[in-house]
């Protein structure tokens, strides 16, 4: 029967169908436009931020004050008042733009955050998928995701007033606001991300693995630790990468809780100054077009690129994981 492939004979019906097809095509165009706008906005933001940082690479005028060398390599300023090789002090007679204290500060705070959040998030996910009864599991997930909804300024405030005092009473560090304080608060912001993705990864491991393990005589903990966790490792790794990316870009918590001192050292009990906090604190004051302005945009581009790469790795790994386990679950 060819009735399904031919338009019916009645002209009114044929006209209606043609109209519907045209409307359909217009809606498709509208939706495509929405997608194009969303993607191009992100591309345009990157281009704007990148364009404002280009003078750091190419402009003669800016090179009098700062070059890629001065940003990353140790400097000898030749004056007795400036004895240290890595200094971030842009407002000065001789402006100093070394990014090393900022990069080191960001790294220190992120490492503390991951050291705090990764075990908590992964173990909580294991509990949720392997040991918790169903009713508990279904309430844990939304509650931890509530933690993700806490505004970062509230976490920063908590770290500044409460957490810093607690840590100070316990340990008596020289600096009340330090990398550990900011790192723990940052970890609180990162735990929900790691938990959610690890929980997804762990629950995607097929039932058959657990059943086989139990059949061989393993206890629930042995199954969880030696069978399920290794199987879910790619997904958990993706969660860690995404959490790392979030920690690198987080601004408000570190601005309030880290002390903002641009110290270049591996001592975690000292204050730190992160890339994001520097931009937040200083961008309001810079005069448009100055070297300081372009260096801040350079930092912005750096942050954009780092988090973009991290997010890309994380998303690709999660996609691969889902494909593999969906295929394996036969």
């Amino acid at each position, binding site marked *: 029967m060819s009735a399904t492939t031919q338009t019916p004979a009645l002209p009114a019906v044929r006209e209606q169908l043609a109209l519907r097809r045209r409307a359909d095509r217009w809606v498709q165009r509208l939706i495509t436009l929405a997608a194009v706008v969303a993607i191009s906005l992100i591309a345009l933001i990157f281009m704007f931020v990148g364009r404002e940082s280009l003078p750091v690479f190419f402009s003669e005028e800016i090179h009098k004050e700062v070059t890629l060398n001065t940003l990353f390599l140790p400097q000898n300023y030749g004056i007795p*008042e*400036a004895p*240290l090789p890595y*200094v*971030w*002090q*842009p*407002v*000065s*007679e001789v402006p*100093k733009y070394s990014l090393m*204290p900022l990069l080191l500060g960001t790294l220190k705070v992120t490492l503390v955050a991951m050291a705090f959040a990764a075990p908590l998030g992964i173990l909580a996910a294991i509990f949720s998928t392997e040991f918790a009864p169903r009713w508990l599991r279904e309430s844990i997930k939304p509650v931890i995701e509530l933690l993700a909804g806490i505004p970062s300024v509230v976490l920063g405030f908590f770290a500044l007033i409460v957490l810093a*005092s607690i840590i100070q009473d316990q340990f008596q560090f*020289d*600096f*009340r*606001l330090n990398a550990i304080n900011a790192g723990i608060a940052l970890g609180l912001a990162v735990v929900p991300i790691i938990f959610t993705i690890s929980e997804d990864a762990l629950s995607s491991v097929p039932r058959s693995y657990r059943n086989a393990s139990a059949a061989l005589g393993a206890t629930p903990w042995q199954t969880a630790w030696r069978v399920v966790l290794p199987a879910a490792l790619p997904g958990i790794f993706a969660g860690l990468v995404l959490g790392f990316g979030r920690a690198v870009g987080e601004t408000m918590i570190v601005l309030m809780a880290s*002390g*903002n*001192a*641009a*110290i*270049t050292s591996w001592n975690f009990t*000292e*204050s730190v*100054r992160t890339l994001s906090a520097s931009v937040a*604190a*200083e961008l*309001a*004051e*810079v*005069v*448009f077009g100055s070297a300081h302005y372009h260096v801040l945009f350079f930092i912005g581009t750096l942050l954009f690129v780092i988090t973009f790469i991290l997010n890309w790795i994380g998303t690709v790994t999660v996609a691969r994981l889902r494909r593999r386990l969906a295929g394996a679950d036969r």
Partner: protein
Amino acid sequence: MKSRKVVLTVALLPAVALAAAAQQRNVTIKGSDTMVILGQKWAEVFMQKNSGITVQVTGGGSGTGIAALINGTTDVAESSRPMRDAEKDQVKSRRGKDVLELPVAVDGLAVYVHESNPISELNLQQLKAIYTGVAKNWKDVGGNDERIILYSRENSSGTYAYFKEHVLENADYYPTAQTLPGTAAVINAVAKDRRGIGYGGIAYGKGIKHLKVKKDANSPAVDPTMENVLQAKYPISRYLYWYLAGAPAGDLKTLADWVVSKDGQKVVENVGYYPLNEKDRAASAALLGGAKARAKAGS
């Protein structure tokens, strides 16, 4: 017909609202965090007397205010440091007008330490040594054997710039100096840290100890009180400025004239800063008055 009338009215409402907003007279003041409470108090008292004018005051640091003046997003830039020549040139090139520098109050920069600190006075060279990292321990300046913890301001702050220029003599702050967003934050931090030292405007000084400052090892130690600041005995005192683009007109002129008048200066005293002395007040009023008044004042 009826629905069309409704649609027309609703469509015209935003236009009316827009027109009303355009009629509202606004004066924008941005800048120094040291001066923001003073600016807000001035705005409050002024708006009570002149109900048609709205004055908006924001902080952000002297650098922020000056950048806003250059970019044209504010009428007045409050600043706790003098504007640099390069910045004045930028206003001239960006907005086509000369900067009007108006001293509006006087402030002493206080140095704070925790109440339990045995030290009660320091001279300027010792302050420089402390903040540039040459003196790292309190016993180097005659106190206990403990590390000195430095508290400073962000580099957008006029207080930061003033302290760097006049006390550090343009040397760099030591990198361990923690940067805080305002004088109140510095005071809070020093109040919690018995090894801490910080600096900031006098008006906010409550809950910690002010140090007496000596110009050098042989000078007398001076307390940051009003008489000492007004008589220029206290070594670290400064003018607080309003910067305008060109001579003010209209509402802005009314506001500026009031601020340098005796009523406006009374507000300064109430907030806790120090008012201009009579000579400086007359000079500021003359600046605002224009060429004729300037000729009359002979300045």
